[in-house]
């Protein structure tokens, strides 16, 4: 390998990037915009679920129950419905996600038998939101029931008789506020880097083919390895700038708690950037049309990264064959690493397995890419 030729290629590529300010601006502005949009847009915090109420009874007790639903900040009263048909209509229009129906003899049954039921209907199109809303509703009902029982006992002058209650003490670790942002933002950084990285390099060789400059390149003494390293160097710098920006935004703007070491973070980020750029380069070598290379880059990065990296959908809940597929997704390892470094403060030793996986990944990609490029025109 000749260092002078290497730097000549790197210089040529840098010039090419520099003289296409539109692409450079996109490469540098994209992380800012994506961090803003994804950081705020990707949230699973389900609060103030719009609730419709059909209070058939309209008694003091039923009104209190409704008040308690709204007073918990989990639900927001959207509409008061006039009849049962309106429930179906509200559900169809999506004007509320849940409805509560309090039957006409609710408080009478409650007084006479001690047990009465309240019916809730949820628009379960979004199963996750429904699942969590049902949990909230059960919480509201449980608390109300407790208060009603205490009041009932007090009214009879009896001491509320606790029949051996269990006091559940939930302790949440690593993400104490159960804030979905702390869980998602480190993943978002991995996603953005993965997308930008592939986008940066996936056209770099196919562009030379389409423009016809490949003939000139082939006639120079440059070797395949020099070409690859030289072409990747400037993009590596851009990738690291983007990464630094995203990580700073995560820690300082979104205030995701950072408990690990900066050194681990820098090392793993550089490694992941290398993998991502390598994948883009490999595609670019293999597919000669820019359209084809870009299509494959989108397909091979956008879907696996958003879906199979575990950044939103937990990998351990997927069926075994899909879990096996996730082992091939580079972002999976980086999402694990980032989350552990940010929230758990894990060290390099704790993360040996995912780091090793990324090292292997980088080595494999670069080896294949270096071998794929032949200095031939056919």
């Amino acid at each position: 390998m000749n260092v002078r030729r290497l730097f000549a290629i790197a210089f040529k590529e840098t010039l090419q990037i520099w003289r296409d300010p539109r692409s450079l601006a996109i490469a540098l502005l994209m992380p800012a915009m994506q961090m803003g949009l994804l950081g705020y847009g990707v949230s699973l915090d389900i609060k103030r679920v719009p609730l419709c109420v059909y209070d058939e009874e309209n008694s003091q007790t039923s009104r209190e129950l409704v008040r308690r639903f709204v007073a918990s900040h989990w639900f927001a009263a959207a509409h008061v419905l006039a009849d049962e048909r309106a429930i179906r209509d509200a559900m169809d229009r999506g004007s509320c996600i849940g409805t509560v129906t309090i039957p006409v003899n609710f408080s009478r049954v409650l007084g006479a038998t001690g047990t009465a039921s309240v019916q809730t209907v949820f628009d379960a199109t979004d199963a996750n939101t429904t699942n969590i809303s049902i949990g909230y509703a059960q919480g509201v009902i449980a608390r109300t029931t407790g208060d009603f029982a205490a009041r009932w006992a007090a009214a009879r002058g009896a001491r509320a008789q606790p029949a051996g209650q269990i006091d559940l003490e939930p302790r949440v670790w690593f993400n104490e506020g159960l804030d979905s942002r702390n869980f998602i933002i480190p993943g978002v950084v991995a996603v953005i880097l993965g997308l930008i990285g592939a986008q940066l390099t996936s056209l770099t060789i196919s562009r030379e083919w389409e423009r016809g400059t490949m003939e000139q390149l082939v006639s120079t003494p440059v070797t395949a390895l020099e070409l690859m390293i030289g072409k990747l160097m400037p993009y590596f710098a851009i990738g690291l700038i983007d990464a630094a920006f995203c990580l700073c935004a995560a820690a300082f703007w979104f205030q995701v708690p950072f408990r690990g070491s900066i050194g681990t973070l820098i090392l793993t980020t550089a490694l992941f950037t290398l993998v991502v750029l390598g994948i883009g380069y490999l595609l670019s070598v293999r597919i000669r049309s820019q359209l084809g290379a870009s299509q494959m880059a989108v397909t091979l990065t956008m879907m696996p990264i958003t879906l199979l990296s575990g950044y939103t959908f937990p990998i351990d809940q997927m069926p075994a064959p899909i879990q096996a597929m996730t082992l091939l997704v580079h972002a999976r390892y980086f999402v694990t690493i980032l989350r552990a470094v940010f929230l758990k403060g894990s060290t390099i030793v704790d993360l040996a397995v995912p780091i090793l996986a990324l090292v292997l990944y980088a080595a494999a990609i670069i080896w294949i890419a270096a071998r794929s490029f032949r200095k031939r025109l056919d």
Partner: protein
Amino acid sequence: MFERLQVMLMKEFLELRRDRWAMFRLIVPLLVQVIAFGYAATFTVNHVATAVLDLDHSQASRSLLSHFAANGRFDIVDVAATERQVTRDLDTGRATVAIVIHAGFSQYLNNGRTAPLQVSVDGTNSNTALIALGYVSLIVAQFQLEQAAGVWPARTAAASPGSSVVLEERPWFNAGLEDRWFFIPGVIGTLTLIQVVSLTAFAVVREREVGTLEQIMVSPIRPIEFILGKATPFFLIGLAEVALITVLGVLWFHIPFVGSPLLMLLGASFFLLAAIGLGLLLSTLARTQQQAFALNFFLVNPFFILSGFAFPIAAMPKVLQWFTLINPLRYFLVVIRAVFLKGAGLDVLWPDLAAMALLGTGMFALSVLRFRKSLD
């Protein structure tokens, strides 16, 4: 005009057919993605890795733990002997939930006092943690009821709480709370948007980059004919994709399709109009395919994330909620899901359809205007 349009169309289809890999690149990734989405996109919480520590060694504590084991939501991966072991399980990620029953648990219960039960959850994934905590409290409540009925029947009767309200919940449209029913219809819109926008943008920019755009411009073809000629094949490809994924969803994943296919077609047409308009608009902003590609990434990802595809729009900050109003995917997802699962009709969906039609026409008109300008 029609003659020229016909020529233009023939050229486009020929170009498409000559690229042998084009069809492969269109269809195979699409199928793989639909299958992957169907199986991988799930927020369901099952088989939560659980560590237990029983320091009480009583009948009550064993019974409570067996409730957890029998429930199916929790997999007991470690029966720990010390608190330190539990801590390590959570630290290393071996367990997501840890249940610690302290000594004296059953004594407290038998004396009618309040017995503490410590449950630690790895909150890294807040959604999983929240749902798992919900299941824990349900299991504990059930255990309490059984204990109350079995161990102290007399006392329960005496202290019968005067008021207990029972919640009957009924999830409509998706009674089994299947995530798949939510995501597969969503995939239709998302994948179609991603492919159609990039295809359209590249098709125009490539002509400009390779230099063939000038040849077309010296021919008698007018800009509007050029744009229609470019757009029509992608419109048809888009419709075929929508149909393909719909069939796959219904036959392979057994997603119920209760609504009207015609309404779906109408929605898809308006949506594709908007998607192609967006692609054309992108093509007027980019000089090279590299730029078109970057812009495509730049825009499509936010459209995808901010559509309500996976993340509820209601959970976003107000500013982003406003942004979703200009996102055609947002409306199309409402239409697809309503047609698939709810069987909603035109009377309910007309605002979404109108919004898409408006956005589509707007983007199309804007791109034609900008295209004319870029030729001068």
